[in-house]
């Protein structure tokens, strides 16, 4: 861990019905988890027991949870870490709407009707010139405006994080221009640019090759005792971690999707260098209470 105050975040996977252990595990969860009021109570309970913020994929579900929380917590500014786009939903929409062009039309229509004039202007420019950077900026403005309209003017949007599917594609295809444009654009809005990846060693190698300024960025990536989703291997990811004291790294999948017990999982993550924080999803009040108390106690000693 770094010497700074640890960033402990509650994640949203259970609210979307996601379990990386198995889909069956997700189906067997309590049915209340998809209830917005129940989910917002879980986030609040996590915050009361040591979590410092909420990391979520921007979707109708999470925006409803934020609205509900706003009603219940008028006193404080919640730290938000937003992941965009909600890729799995777009993949499903591609199936229903006839591929990538079908999704593009749908998003374009939503952006035009969003009444966010910055997004509209950029999307018109982007579409007319087919300029990828302008289209990306228009899309980011649109997503940020959705968060602001859910939470209100006092939004404390700490980081906007590029979803792993886009991050991995951009890494594979050497889109250094996209990373640079993304970092510049998000930074200009006073927000920390972030990246979600399950190819951490590859990510670090590329960023070093491109000579990117990594002091500005946040990375959320799996770190767990059994090396689950740490590609290409646990050892390579740990080696890469040693090389990146300038990144802000939030460890995810620390429990390996419920495969590990919290105590052993936390012990491993705490032993790693250069980790700034942890994100953890919870599906029951008991989990929220116990897990975040344990995390807070571990990282503050």
């Amino acid at each position, binding site marked *: 861990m770094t010497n700074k105050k640890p960033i402990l975040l509650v994640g949203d996977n259970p609210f979307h019905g996601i379990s990386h252990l198995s889909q069956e595990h997700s189906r067997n969860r309590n049915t209340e988890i998809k209830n917005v009021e129940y989910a917002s109570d879980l986030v609040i309970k996590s915050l009361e027991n040591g979590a410092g913020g909420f990391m979520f994929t921007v979707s109708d579900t999470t925006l409803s949870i934020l609205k509900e929380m706003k009603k219940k917590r008028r006193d404080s500014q919640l730290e938000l870490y937003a992941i965009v786009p909600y890729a799995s939903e777009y993949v499903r929409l591609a199936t229903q709407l006839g591929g990538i062009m079908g999704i593009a039309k749908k998003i374009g229509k939503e952006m035009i009707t969003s009444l966010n004039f910055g997004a509209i202007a950029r999307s018109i420019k982007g579409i007319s010139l087919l300029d990828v950077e302008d289209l990306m900026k228009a899309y980011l403005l649109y997503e940020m405006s959705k968060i602001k309209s859910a939470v209100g003017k006092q939004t404390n949007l700490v980081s906007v994080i590029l979803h792993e599917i886009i991050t991995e*594609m951009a890494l594979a*295809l050497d889109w250094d221009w996209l990373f640079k444009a993304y970092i510049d654009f998000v930074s200009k809005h006073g927000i920390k640019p972030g990246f979600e990846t399950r190819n951490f060693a590859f990510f670090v190698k590329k960023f070093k090759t491109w000579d990117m300024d990594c002091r500005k960025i946040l990375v959320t990536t799996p770190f767990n005792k059994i090396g689950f989703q740490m590609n290409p291997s646990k050892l390579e990811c740990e080696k890469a971690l040693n090389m990146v004291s300038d990144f802000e790294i939030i460890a995810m999948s620390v429990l390996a999707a419920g495969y590990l017990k919290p105590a052993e999982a936390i012990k491993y993550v705490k032993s790693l260098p250069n980790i700034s924080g942890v994100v953890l999803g919870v599906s029951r009040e008991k989990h929220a209470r116990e897990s975040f108390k344990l995390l807070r106690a571990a990282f503050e000693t």
Partner: protein
Amino acid sequence: MKFGELMKILKDVPLKVGIIGLGKMGLLHASILSALGNVRVLGLCEKSRVMRRLSKKFFKGAEVVDDISELSGLGIDAVYVTTPIPSHFSIVTRIFSERIARNWFVEKTLASNYVEAKQLCEMAKCSHGIAMVGYMKRFAVTFRKAKDLIDSQVLGDLVSFDAYAYSSDFAEIKETPKISGARGGVLGDLGSHIVDLAFWFFGSLTLDSAKIGSRGAAGSEDKAIFCVSQADLKGNFSVSWCETQYRMPEFGFIIRGTNGILSVNDDVLEIKLKKGQSERLFRHDLNDNVDFLLGAPEYYREDHHFVRSIIDDTMVESDFISASKVDDLLGQIKNRAEYF
């Protein structure tokens, strides 16, 4: 120069790949192939003008064209066909007749019907290259483990199995849209994977009965139930893309043998033997890491396997012949099914 040295040099030369169809599967394969050190994506073919213009920015150094013929002359070693199923036959026929490349990867299903699939098998034979179909479930660690256990006869003589393929893709839509036909209906889209796995596990199977369910006026195929057999082995399949709570498509089997029972799906494998031993293995337990993860680890393994088969000139998993058998069974189901 010794033959071995020549082979080493040839293996160090990047494999040049072309991709036809830049939908989500085309982009996925292009990305994974680009992450493999010994591959260069050199040519892209896409009908949509917008996608072509965007691709010129996305794929630096690659030719982006709108007609397959324009890929010839690029010296391409292998072609990926990731267009809708109804176009596979005509596209592969052109790749073959215009000698664009010797090695072919076609996203499943191989063709729209068995007649076309058989013709493509003949072309593959004449082409003397590697011809593979994207049945990526064979590269999932849980199904590979199941295959090992079945082959090693841990279950004894196989008696029966139940197989399913479910997704929620159209669960919340009242009427399945017409575009679902381009995916081959539920049988082509989901059923093909589970049938391919069944052939891989058990060998050839004979169709005994079939039912297909449709929800829409457009005559869409939304659900299918069919029964197969092979000597004393009986199997039941259930396929649907209208199930609730299947956020991601899920494929699974329960297999019964004289020694015990094995259940397996994309995430977990469980075996219970009559002598009392039992084991439950998640992906976590089966070394699921890959050099580059995008979508799911099986996509990487599938592409890596195809590329290695070309470079090493070795047999490929899920070749055209085995894929044509899937098309054959799916055709029989459609011809013989009662509709409900």
